[in-house]
Structure formats: C-alpha cells, structure tokens
C-alpha cells in the first residue's frame, strides 16, 4: 500500500522530537480525527535552521511529517511556506488517495509554525489556506 520511501520515513523518521526554545510551533489536527501533528522550528537569518516534529497518526502522517521537515530544513522561511502537500506526497513517491489528507496536515502544521514565528517577531501572519481540505474523518 505504501511506497518504500514512505516506509523508510515511517520506520526511520528524520527530525523527530521537540525543540526546547523553538521560534515557532504549529499544531494541527485533533485526536478525535486520529491525527495530530506538531512542528517546531528554529529560525536564524530567515533560514529554517532546525525543525522537529511530533505526530500522532497513521503511517502516511508520520512519513509526511518526516519528509516535510527534511524538505524545509535549511530553506528560507518563504520557501518553507511554499512547500505544498503535493510536493511532499511526490517526494514520498506517492500516497494512496485516501491518505493524501495526511500530507495536507504537514503543510498546515508548517504554516502554523511559521505564522507563530512571525507573530512572535511582530510580523503580519501570512494567509493560511485554512481548514482541512479533503479531510473527512
């Protein structure tokens, strides 16, 4: 059902954990849906210097968190913001259709973390897409 890439990120998740003095934290989902994703970012000079995640969810949710954190590490905040769930799913060599929404979670958690960082630094939050599209738990 899952690609080898998904299974690799699932079994050996990259960037799993927390950042004590994070510059931004984003949390999405809720336990009732069976998925919660929390992203921690450390930003220096507009660069995502470090990123960690915690996820309660299925294989796709965990693998998406892992892949998404890898993809934004070392990128500018704007580049991180522009990471789409589609890109995450593609990097994972595809997700089953009923699991696409799990990669949306990653995109949303990153947006939340970035806006948290912006808010803490007195910046206008960027406009989030809002809501869990295709998320029909």
């Amino acid at each position, binding site marked *: 059902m899952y690609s080898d890439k998904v299974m690799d990120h699932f079994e050996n998740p990259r960037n799993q954990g927390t950042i004590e003095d994070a510059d931004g934290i984003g949390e999405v989902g809720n336990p*009732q849906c069976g998925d919660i994703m929390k992203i921690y970012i450390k930003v220096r000079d507009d660069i995502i210097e470090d990123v960690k995640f*915690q996820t309660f969810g*299925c294989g796709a949710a965990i693998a998406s968190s892992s892949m998404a954190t890898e993809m934004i590490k070392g990128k500018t905040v704007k580049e991180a913001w522009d990471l789409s769930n589609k890109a995450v799913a593609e990097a994972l060599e595809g997700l089953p259709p009923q699991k696409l929404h799990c990669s949306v979670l990653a995109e949303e958690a990153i947006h939340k973390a970035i806006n948290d960082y912006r808010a803490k630094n007195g910046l206008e939050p960027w406009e989030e897409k809002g809501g869990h599209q295709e998320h029909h738990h």
Partner: protein
Amino acid sequence: FIYMDNAATTPTRKEVVDAMIPYMSDNFGNPSSLYSIAELSAEAVETARSQVASAIGALPKEIYFTSGGTEADNWAIKGVAFANRDKGNHIITSQVEHHAVLHTTEWLEKQGFEVTYLPVDKYGMVSPGDVRDAITDKTILITIMTANNEIGTIMPIAEIGKIAREKGVLFHTDAVQAAGHIPLDVSEMNIDMLSLSGHKFRGPKGTGALYIGKRVKIDPLMHGGAQERHRRAGTENVPGIVGLGKAIELSAAEMEEESGRISSLRDMLIQKLLEIPKSYLNGHPKIRLPNNVNIVFEYIEGESILLMLNRRGICASTGSACSSKSLDPSHVLMACGLPHEIIHGSLRLTLGHDTTEDDIEYVVQNIREVVQKLRNMSPLTPPELRNN
C-alpha cells in the same frame, strides 16, 4: 511471519484442500444433472450438509449453502423482511453487529422498515432485557451476533433466543466468528437462523451457510435455478461446499482441545500486554472468544502500530479509522463508549491453530518496542512515558 489476524481470515487447512481438489477437474459434474458423475457431486454436497448440520445441532435439510457469511446475513435479514412484510416492519439488532448486518438493515430502512439498534455495555454486551423491551407487535426479526468480531465478546444468545421464541419473533444470529470455535446448538438456543463462514475456521473463502429452521418464512436472496431446494439458486460451488463441510467437521472434533490451548495463550498474551503502562483490554474480560485479544495503547495510533508490526513479521488488525478505507473509527469500540482518541490506539490480535508460546513472547516483545517508539513520536504522550 507470525499471523495473529485469524478473525480476518484463516489459512485453508491441508485436509480441506485435499478434500476439495477431486471436485475441481475430476468429479466436476453439476449436482443438478442426471448422469452418474453428477451424482458424485450431489452426494458430496449432501455429506457437507450433514457435517454442517451436526456441528450446530441442526438437521441437514435446514442447512443452505451460500457464498460466505455476508451472503448468509443479507439473505436471513432481507429474506425474512420481504417475506414477512404483511406481519410487520420492525427489526431489532445491536450497534455492534458486523457491517454485513448493519448495512443490510440500513438499506432496509430505505425500503420502509424500522430498525432498533440496541446499545451495549462497556464490554460490548447486549442485554436480553433490552431485547425484550424493544419487541413490539410489528417486530418480525431479531438479529444479534453470537460473538463480536472485533472485541470477541460472546453475547447471551441463548437468553435472547428464549425471549424471541416466547414472543413468537424470529431470531437470527450471525455466528461467523463463533462457529467452529465455541459450541453452538440451534435447538437448545432457540435460534431460527444462523450464519457461518468457512474461511473463519480454516475452510475455504467464498463459502458459508445459513441454517433456516422450520418455522421461518423467507424469500430467496438469489433467485434462479432450483438448487438448494429452490431457496438458493446458482450452480453449487461443489469444491467449496466440500471444503466447508470438512473444515467444520474437523473444527467441531478438535474444538475442546483447541479452544483450551488457544484460550490459555490468549490469557498469557493479555496479561503480558497489560503490563505496558496505559494499556486496557477491550471486550469482556471473561466471556470472550478463545482467540481474541483486543487492547488499547493510549497516545498512539493503530495503523502505525500495524505497519511497524508488519515490518517485524507480525500480522494484526486495528479499529482505527486511519486503517479503514472509509476513515470511520470502529463502530464497535464507539458503541462500547470509548472516546475516539482511545479507539485509534486499539490493536486486535486473534490467535489461531498455528500460534505457539514462542509467538506470544515474540509478539509481546515487539509490541513493547513499537508502542514505545510510537509514543516517543507522539505529541500526546506525557513525559514520564517517553524515553527519548
């Protein structure tokens, strides 16, 4: 690999396969035909009918072969509903039935029937008193499963049968998880109809049977030829029927020994898994199928447990929404009153003929590791349960 999902399906046992093969390419006649080779098929079907009948205390002529448990459930419920519409339009069932029952009654609701879905207690048990109270003068059918497929709880079907008989209402039981595993007797238990499925007791997939007692008025679900005494049309799946008969005969003969052995392995597994902190048993602690373990681990999600166990060669199942195509969490665990987030961490392990004590050790060890690994990853896990 270690297969602990025997409630989903079982391997077809060798004796059964051996019994089936001769009816594929050699004694392949259509039992309805007149010539000698067809008589061999017809006799084989009748032997299987007796085997099924004697396993559940029925008469051979009360057994009808189907394509599985789903067909048996659909037939019993729709067949009685349509044939007894003049008597009433009310059906009683429970919230923890298999979808083969629930989606059937939901469809019947669209056709103008009224259905009562009885609640269950925290162990998933239906109360006979609730059944009695739900009966009205419009009630034409009570359908309550013998044992639950997710949590293993065994229902008080003898009591329910007694009530149904007293009130003159037909009683169907979905015994798909029970048949071949625990003793059943349709006459002692006042059961009017009983569904079973071959692949749940090491028989072939795509085979099942419906017991229909003599007082039942029922329409066919499969209209067509005169097979099964005009009640279930379609050329008989002779090898499948032979396999079903053989499997249930062997299961009945071995039941006592096998269920003793398996239930002590089950108890060992339950005890060791409950040593993991924040884990709870689902289903009734005692009145449960010999092979069923259903346990919840807080803070983690079932599909990810399954995937990690699979990498370690362990096959299991969960009630988590994330693992189901419909993305709905288990309706059974919901009916037991568990909150969503707990349901997500449920794991079902169903033991089988091949399960050994070593398997139990291996599985416990791996579940411990996997649970810890996932708890380390989860944002919900309290600090004292993390080790990272």
